[in-house]
């Protein structure tokens, strides 16, 4: 029993109590808000309930212990205490409580992001089931819209956290030679916020579709949550917005922590020009998350206020349905959203750039081709991505005179992206390519992201965008960048680091099945989607004209193949985690620091902090003269020096 308090179990119990007290107390004593249709739930009550849930949860997992001991100026925790908090001698329980060790947090993130991926994938399958033939047969249209919105939002949340979360936490500190993240407690807290955020988010269908019990009760907006529609959509919008706000706060904390870690915690000799590209990619993504998320949080906050307190941020009083004074602006919502929304796609894909490059180097057995160029590419994307958001508004009617500027910046972003492609090609050329599953996925990134990038150029052009905007062409394009780019990168990263993270190898034979199933399913489905897009099929519709039927049938069938191959992946992960082949410390012959520490990685990573004497890409050549001679040879060294 004493082991259970504090823990996630206690947090769940207290969170549930908090939610009940919060939502019921308000409805009974403060008074009813709007939408009295549901039994005893209104929007304001829900939000107060969510706050209750959050506080109950944080109390239960023991997150308040340190802030209050700081407040009361109690003794600062000593090293022994810190180690206990990091999960020393806690066994498996350390994964189920507030644990500060970055490796535990990384594993927690890995599991939760994969769960989110599965849920989002389930949404995709429901969508494809509806669209396999014309006619809205599988779901009522309002339910379908809710599924579309949740699939979109959930996949975005998944993909923005599935690099920074698992790999940013587990791998990056070891890669730069640190004992932990800069702020281990903040790190544990950022995971501890993701989880209740997800729970609140998943209440959307419960309140929207079941309790509200009407087709319109769910979320009708898509993941773009444009203000005017978000203001009037069903009660499901409230848990969705609140959950995403919380997850946004979690990702800001994670980003602040990562940026600080990379800046201040690098081991002696780990100069900026010796950082592995993975670190650069995740660092760039963390910068984007720290800056961009604020816009989206503001957007969601204003939506919640509009809905609950009838403010007029987005609400425009037109015609007979006026409930407030109006004076809002629909374009404001669009701009706030896309100011986050565009950097967000790069936030998803930058870590994949870095990880794919690193994997190509390791399995190509060749130094990185053009290190400075690769860094320039990634940082160039970081800067430019804040200057392009209005390309999502080429048909919105907003500010036509500045469209050429956004067309120019959007096309310019293909220059730094192009640098990354040259780096990739140069690294592969004349290497000794070892075709492991990780390598295959990294190579598929090239093909898939290339298609995503080239079709993006079509959309950056104003006149072409007028025809393609809001259609399936756009859907296919960004799935090529996010699935074809980021998700392939994620799979590559999982196959690559799984041995280090879990101590076991993933099954390579299942990996090959997963790989080919994914490539065939994904490519056929989404190339066919480009085709219906060119034909003129709009996005996010439950029903479509007969002319689009053949291609949609193909899309659905191959989407199911894609899903089946991802099930193989999940099976592989679970089976290998339980009973896979035991991994040695450095199974791939890689040279960055995380491979030089033993597996499983000891609590503080390094017995003694290493002094780095050269970069992580020393393949195929003696270390340049002039640099210090390394004390422990890189190569296949199985243990860290010292």
């Amino acid at each position: 029993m004493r082991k259970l308090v504090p823990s996630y179990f206690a947090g769940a119990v207290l969170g549930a109590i908090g939610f009940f007290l919060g939502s019921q107390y308000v409805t009974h004593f403060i008074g009813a808000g709007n939408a009295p249709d549901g039994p005893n739930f209104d929007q304001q009550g829900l939000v107060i309930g969510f706050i209750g849930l959050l506080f109950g949860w944080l109390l239960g997992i023991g997150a308040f212990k340190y802030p209050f001991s700081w407040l009361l100026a109690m003794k600062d925790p000593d090293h022994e205490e810190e180690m206990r908090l990091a999960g020393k001698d806690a066994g498996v329980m350390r994964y189920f409580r507030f644990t500060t060790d970055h490796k535990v947090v990384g594993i927690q993130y890995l599991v939760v992001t994969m769960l989110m991926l599965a849920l989002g994938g389930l949404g995709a399958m429901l969508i494809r089931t509806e669209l396999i033939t014309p006619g809205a047969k599988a779901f009522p249209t309002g339910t379908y819209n809710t599924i579309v919105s949740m699939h979109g939002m959930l996949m975005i949340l998944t993909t923005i956290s599935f690099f920074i979360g698992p790999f940013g936490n587990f791998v990056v500190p070891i890669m730069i030679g640190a004992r932990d993240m800069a702020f281990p407690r903040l790190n544990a807290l950022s995971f501890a916020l993701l989880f209740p955020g997800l729970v609140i988010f998943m209440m959307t269908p419960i309140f929207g579709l079941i309790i509200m019990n009407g087709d319109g009760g769910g979320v009708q907006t898509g993941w773009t949550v444009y203000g005017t529609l978000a203001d009037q959509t069903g009660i499901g919008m409230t848990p969705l917005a609140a959950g995403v706000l919380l997850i946004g706060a979690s990702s800001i904390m994670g980003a602040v922590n990562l940026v600080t870690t990379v800046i201040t915690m690098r081991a002696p000799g780990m100069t900026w020009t010796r950082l592995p590209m993975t670190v650069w990619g995740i660092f760039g993504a963390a910068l984007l998350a720290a800056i961009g998320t604020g816009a989206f949080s503001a957007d969601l906050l204003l939506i919640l206020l509009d809905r609950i307190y009838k403010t007029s941020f987005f609400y425009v009083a037109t015609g007979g349905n006026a409930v407030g004074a109006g004076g809002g602006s629909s374009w404001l919502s669009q701009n706030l959203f896309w100011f986050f929304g565009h950097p967000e796609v790069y936030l998803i894909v930058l870590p994949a750039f870095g990880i794919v490059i690193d994997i190509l180097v390791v399995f190509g057995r060749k130094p990185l081709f053009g290190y400075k160029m690769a860094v320039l590419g990634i940082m160039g994307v970081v800067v430019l991505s804040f200057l392009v958001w209005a390309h999502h508004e080429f048909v919105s009617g907003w500010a036509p005179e500045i469209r050429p500027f956004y067309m120019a910046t959007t096309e310019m972003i293909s220059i730094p992206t192009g640098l990354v492609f040259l780096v990739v090609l140069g690294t592969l050329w004349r290497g000794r390519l070892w075709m492991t599953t990780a390598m295959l996925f990294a190579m598929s990134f090239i093909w898939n992201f290339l298609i995503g990038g080239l079709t993006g150029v079509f959309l950056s052009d104003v006149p072409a965008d007028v025809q393609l905007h809001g259609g399936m062409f756009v859907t296919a394009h960004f799935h090529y960048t996010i699935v074809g780019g980021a998700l392939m990168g994620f799979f590559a990263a999982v196959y690559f680091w799984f041995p280090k993270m879990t101590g076991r190898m993933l099954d390579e034979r299942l990996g090959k099945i997963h790989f080919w199933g994914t490539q065939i399913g994904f490519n056929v489905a989404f190339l066919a989607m480009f085709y219906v897009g060119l034909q003129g099929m709009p996005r996010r519709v439950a029903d479509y004209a007969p002319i689009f039927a053949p291609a949609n049938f193909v899309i659905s069938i191959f989407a199911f193949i894609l899903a089946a191959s991802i099930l193989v992946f999940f099976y592989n992960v679970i089976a290998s985690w339980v009973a896979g082949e035991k991994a040695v410390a450095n199974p791939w012959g890689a040279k960055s620091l995380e491979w030089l520490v033993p597996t499983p990685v000891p609590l503080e990573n390094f017995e003694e902090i290493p002094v780095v004497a050269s970069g992580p890409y020393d393949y195929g050549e003696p270390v340049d003269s002039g640099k210090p001679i390394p004390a422990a040879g890189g190569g296949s060294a199985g243990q860290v020096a010292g």
Partner: protein
Amino acid sequence: MATSIPASGHAAPHGDSVDHDLKLRRGMLFYVLTDVIFVIFLLTTYVWLRAFHGDGWFPQGTKLPDQQTVYILTGLCVLSGIFYFIGFMGIRNGSQATLTICMAVATVLAIAALSGQIRFMGHLPFTTGDGSYASTYIMLSGYHIYHMLLGTFLGIGVTNRALRGRYSSDRTSGLSAIGYYWYWMALTPVLVTLMMLVLPPNS
């Protein structure tokens, strides 16, 4: 990657060479930066709605909030920031007494501003449903209250720790880190007041 054994011993606890003070300050700076960005977007909302509003921006007959009270509350916040700074400079010069007194004053000022703000919000001449100006005013002031709640927590903690002598002239990074937050908290109402009241919305 080639590594070698560090030649000499290490200054930091359990063998790393991380500057923990720098780390704390940088981290807080980044955190405050994200908060600044969030507030910038809230202010953008105000500027946007003011520039491109429809009829509902400032409906006929809407009254402005009582300016005098707002100026006083803003003044309290600024004063609190100034006391924080004086206290911080005091401990840098080794004066525990200056630190303790100034932190206590800064915290009391913040609590006064906070409770005044909450009371003031209850007596606004408009509600959230009275157009975009009213909406924006309440939203920005509400966010300021959140700032002050967190600030009060930090202020009490800092005062308490100052009382127990946890700071000294070479142990100030915790103070400067919280200072970043404190100054930003004192600055926000100034920005809001300038934009929303000094420039009258109905002009």
